[in-house]
Each structure stands twice: as structure tokens, then as C-alpha cells.
């Protein structure tokens, strides 16, 4: 067994365990921290796949931005609502598990049935996803999608602002959010 395969198995196992932790944790805060672990291990896997720029972006955007945002919201609204009790049908867990297993089988079958071994020369052709290579591609061939993404982020920013605003007594700000908890 080569070292790279061993490394992949270790990191993949951690990633999978973190993914299971997200689903099975009772506290949303624990779920968020497991999610952080999952994102970090995926960033490591990106490096092994020659995607250095995306590994950095993964850490910055997901681990640094999205998880922190989720943690902030958990702190704002108090995530300790017990979701295992209310209106949970008895059969829903079994059905969910069965559907999950079916999904896994279907995806694995469709992914593996037509997958050949990676050829060494195409990997050499890729030259790695360094910031330079990705940036050149992004700012020449894909400049229009890039600008559209900027527009999308602006719309999302304004939308989040409008949705998150206090409806009445806008000047009260954060204290009234706390009072609402």
C-alpha cells in the first residue's frame, strides 16, 4: 500500500467520521464543529488532487466564513431546541436510512461502473490548480460567469439584509434580538 493511498484513507476516514458527527450530534454547536472538521479534511484532499487554490479558498470561504456564520446564528437563536421529540413519526427513521442506502448504492454503481484508472499523463497535463493557473482561466475564458457571481453575491447581501432586518423598531438593533430569544 503506497503512502499516498494510506494518507487518503486516513483523511477520508476523518472526513467521513466528521460527516457522521454532523448528522448524529444532538447539539447544533457540535454539528457545526464537526462540519468544520469535514471542511478542513476536504481541503486536505483538494491539495492531494492538485487543487491548491481551491484548498485555500475552501478554508477561507467555508471554514472561515460559512461555519462562523452558522455558529453566530446558533448563538443568536439558541440552538438547543430538541428536534428528536416533536412530531417525529416512528417509521421516518427507518425509511430515511433505507432511502440513504439506496442512494449510496445507486451513486456508487453509476460512478464506478464507467470509471477507469487515472492516467499519469493527463495529471501531468493539468499542471496543478495553482492560483496562477486558475486565475488565468477565470479572468480570460470565464470572465462573464465571474462577474455574474459578483452580482449574485450583491443580491444575496441585500436579500440577507432585508430578511434579517427588524420589522418594527429598527433602531433597537441587537438587544431586541436577544429579547426575542
Amino acid at each position, binding site marked *: 500500500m503506497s503512502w499516498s493511498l494510506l494518507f487518503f484513507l486516513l483523511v477520508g476516514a476523518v472526513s467521513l467520521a466528521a460527516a457522521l458527527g454532523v448528522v448524529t450530534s444532538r447539539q447544533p454547536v457540535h454539528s457545526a464543529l464537526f462540519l468544520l472538521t469535514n471542511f478542513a479534511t476536504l481541503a486536505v*484532499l483538494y491539495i492531494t488532487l492538485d*487543487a491548491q487554490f481551491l484548498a485555500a479558498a475552501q478554508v477561507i470561504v467555508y471554514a472561515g466564513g460559512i461555519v462562523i456564520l452558522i455558529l453566530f446564528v446558533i448563538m443568536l437563536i439558541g440552538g438547543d431546541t430538541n428536534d428528536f421529540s416533536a412530531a417525529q413519526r416512528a417509521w421516518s427513521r427507518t425509511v430515511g436510512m433505507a432511502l440513504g442506502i439506496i442512494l449510496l448504492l445507486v451513486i456508487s454503481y453509476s460512478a464506478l461502473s464507467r470509471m477507469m484508472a487515472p492516467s499519469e499523463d*493527463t495529471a501531468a497535463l493539468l499542471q496543478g490548480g495553482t492560483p496562477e493557473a486558475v486565475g488565468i482561466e477565470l479572468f480570460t475564458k470565464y470572465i462573464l460567469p465571474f462577474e455574474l457571481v459578483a452580482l449574485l453575491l450583491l443580491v444575496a447581501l441585500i436579500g440577507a439584509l432585508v430578511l434579517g432586518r427588524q420589522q418594527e423598531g429598527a433602531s433597537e438593533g441587537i438587544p431586541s434580538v436577544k429579547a426575542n430569544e
Partner: protein
Amino acid sequence: MVETSYYLVLAAIIFTVGATGVLLRRNALIIFMCIEMMLNSVNLTLIALARQWGNLEGQIFVFMIMAVAAAEVAVGLAILIANVRHRQSINIDEINLLKW
């Protein structure tokens, strides 16, 4: 060099875990995290296939997905907060106003 199919299987398993979490959990925040996890497993697939075929377009796609995921998180969490303000609940079973 690790085979691409290993990455695909790992991504498939993580995606399944996320999808099962969406089915099983009732806390809207955790459902949200599961959706993020599924997006990430798809990103892993795209990057693995970008290496497999030796071009960068998969990685460009992942970049766009990251931006869309960031936008989705911002708007989704704002919706959650607005909902908590009105209903004092993030249990997905109680958010059923649009249910026919």
C-alpha cells in the same frame, strides 16, 4: 497516485450521509449544515474529475459553487432568523405555512 474512483466513492458516501441527515433531522440548522456537506462532496467529485481529465474547468466550476453556497448560506440563515422571530421555532415540522 490515488485512483479517482476512491475519491468518487468517498464523495458518494459523504453525499449520502448529508442526504440522510436532511431526511432524518428536524432541526433546520442541522438540515442546513447537511446541505452544505452535500455541496462539498460534489465539489470533491468535480475536483477529482478535473484531475482525471486534466483540465481546469472542474475547478472553475467548484469556485462558482463556493460563491453560490456562500450566497445561499447568507440568505438561508436570514430566513431562519426571520422565522425564529415570528414563530420562535426552528423545528422543520412546525414551519409548514406553505404546506398544502
